């Protein structure tokens, strides 16, 4: 696979996180676009590529938004694939810029959160879900992931206090990130263990809070970013693989296993060189699965790995190994803003690698790994994607 030479990511924007919002998806997407052009110091007429991800656009699509926002893109993409939509948009946009199909592409994920809208999304998520999953208890994603979590615990001996390590360190990170919806609340091991049961092994703090919000970034040529005097980061390598290991009766691994060795090869670095990791944390077990599949530990060693690893952004934890993980708190502490959640890891990594994160800055971070997972069509998440980024001076 060819590299992404000369293409950079810049201007990370996260805005508008709210538990409920009167605004629709177009408001969040348009607001991110406004902040993107403001941050880049360009006019919106200079944005000639437009990639959008959203669950709640309803009958509108990306093309309708070009008329809403008076854009003239010569390149357009809509990636509605939940937790991987950000990396999908990044990959498609990077190739388009590399091939001069567009010069500045805005990649934006945004979703509203109207009263009771999550119920509607969960009840109508996919035709397989409507026919064969939702009627069974109507637990939404909690039901599917409680089965995956229970199976993982039975298979590898993981316990609730292992999952707590992920949730607690992420909450500590969120306590230092202003955009996190739950960032004002501390979370202790007792809070976690005593939380209200939701589904089987899943308790309240294993579950994300659905919310509204928007995330976005710009993809452009390196020369253009220099000309505009924008801090940026590069894409070392990225890959994706979907519906892999379909024969596993219950999911405990996914596509990352297949392409990670080649991905690290292309980037010329290994897991030990990663300064920060952003996994898609819709549930802690999924983050643990990604740590294993991304090569940080062997399959099944996830529980021990998180016990031995300090995942705080400032490395202030007591564990010996350090791996800042979901440094803005992830979805577990920021809230899950629909499709924007698939962009959260990317915007956060760009902030970290360009040294523009505020009080949750990881010092001296050079390499960041972002991983995406998503779309529970029936009983498991189908998508997997990963992108390795580096700061401009790395």
């Amino acid at each position, binding site marked *: 696979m060819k590299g992404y030479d000369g293409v950079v990511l810049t201007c990370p924007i996260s805005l508008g996180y709210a538990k409920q919002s009167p605004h629709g998806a177009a408001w969040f997407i348009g607001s991110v676009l406004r902040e993107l052009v403001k941050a880049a110091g360009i006019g919106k007429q200079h944005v000639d590529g437009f990639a959008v991800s959203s669950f709640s656009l309803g009958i509108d699509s990306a093309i309708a938004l070009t008329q809403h926002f008076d854009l003239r893109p010569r390149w357009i993409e809509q990636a509605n694939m939940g937790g991987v939509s950000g990396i999908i948009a990044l990959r498609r946009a990077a190739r388009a810029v590399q091939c001069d199909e567009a010069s500045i592409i805005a990649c934006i994920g945004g979703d509203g959160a109207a009263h009771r809208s999550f119920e509607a999304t969960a009840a109508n998520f996919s035709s397989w879900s409507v026919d064969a999953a939702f009627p069974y208890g109507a637990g939404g994603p909690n*039901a599917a992931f409680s089965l995956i979590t229970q199976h993982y615990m039975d298979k590898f001996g993981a316990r609730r206090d292992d999952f707590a390590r992920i949730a607690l360190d992420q909450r500590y990170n969120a306590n230092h990130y202003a955009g996190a919806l739950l960032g004002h609340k501390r979370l202790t091991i007792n809070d976690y263990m005593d939380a209200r049961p939701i*589904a089987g092994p899943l308790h309240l703090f294993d579950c994300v809070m659905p919310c509204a919000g928007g995330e976005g970034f710009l993809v452009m040529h390196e020369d253009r970013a220099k000309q505009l005097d924008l801090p940026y980061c590069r894409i070392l390598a990225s890959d994706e693989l979907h519906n892999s290991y379909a024969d596993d009766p219950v999911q405990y691994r996914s596509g990352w296993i297949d392409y990670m060795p080649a991905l690290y090869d292309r980037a010329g670095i290994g897991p030990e060189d990663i300064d920060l990791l952003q996994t898609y944390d819709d549930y802690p077990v999924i983050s643990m699965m990604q740590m294993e599949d991304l090569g940080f530990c062997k399959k099944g060693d996830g529980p021990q790995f998180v016990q031995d690893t300090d995942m705080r952004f400032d490395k202030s934890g007591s564990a010996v190994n350090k791996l800042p993980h979901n440094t803005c708190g992830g979805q577990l502490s920021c809230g899950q803003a629909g499709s924007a959640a698939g962009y959260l890891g990317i915007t956060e990594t760009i902030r970290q690698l360009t040294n523009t994160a505020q009080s949750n800055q990881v010092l001296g971070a050079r390499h960041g790994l972002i991983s995406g997972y998503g779309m529970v069509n029936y009983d498991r998440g189908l998508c997997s994607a990963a992108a390795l980024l580096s700061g401009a001076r790395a």
Partner: protein
Amino acid sequence: MNLREKMQRRLKLSRPSLRARARPPKQRSPLGAQFTAANLPTALALQCCDACGHVQYPPTELCGQCLDDSLVYRQVGTEGTLLATTALNHSLWEYYKRRLTQNPWLIGSIALDAGPVVLAHIGENTLKSGERVNVFSHTDASQQAVLVAVAASTDMSTPMARRNIVAGMALDVPAHKEGGL
């Protein structure tokens, strides 16, 4: 009734939590409706491909293996192995919310010997993952076919036996609310 009262009443009626009778989710795709119809006369009928023999679930229009357009519903074996179970303490649907107030609602995933992995209601709270089970279909209170798993030793051979299991779970009756609309 003035406009304000009218709108308030309309709002009330659109809130499932205020209704006297709550039922399980009724919504299905056209393929799900076919699944219900095909399962009325039998314990378990799934789509089978006439071209390659693949057993398909959830229902689709084309065979997921060979993409042939020859799926037909046939009676299949009810035996399977329980992969994982979970007890739901939270639900997005009013019927289950009411059922949950007494006991958590049990569901599980089962690998059928016939091939596919299915999600099903768990009929007995003693079932553990790895156990052998029988999975059968039955009509719920929304008149839709749902799958129910019981221990391999439980008798489910007759329609009466299956009806009694479903009645024991109160799946065939709405969840009532005193004084509801």
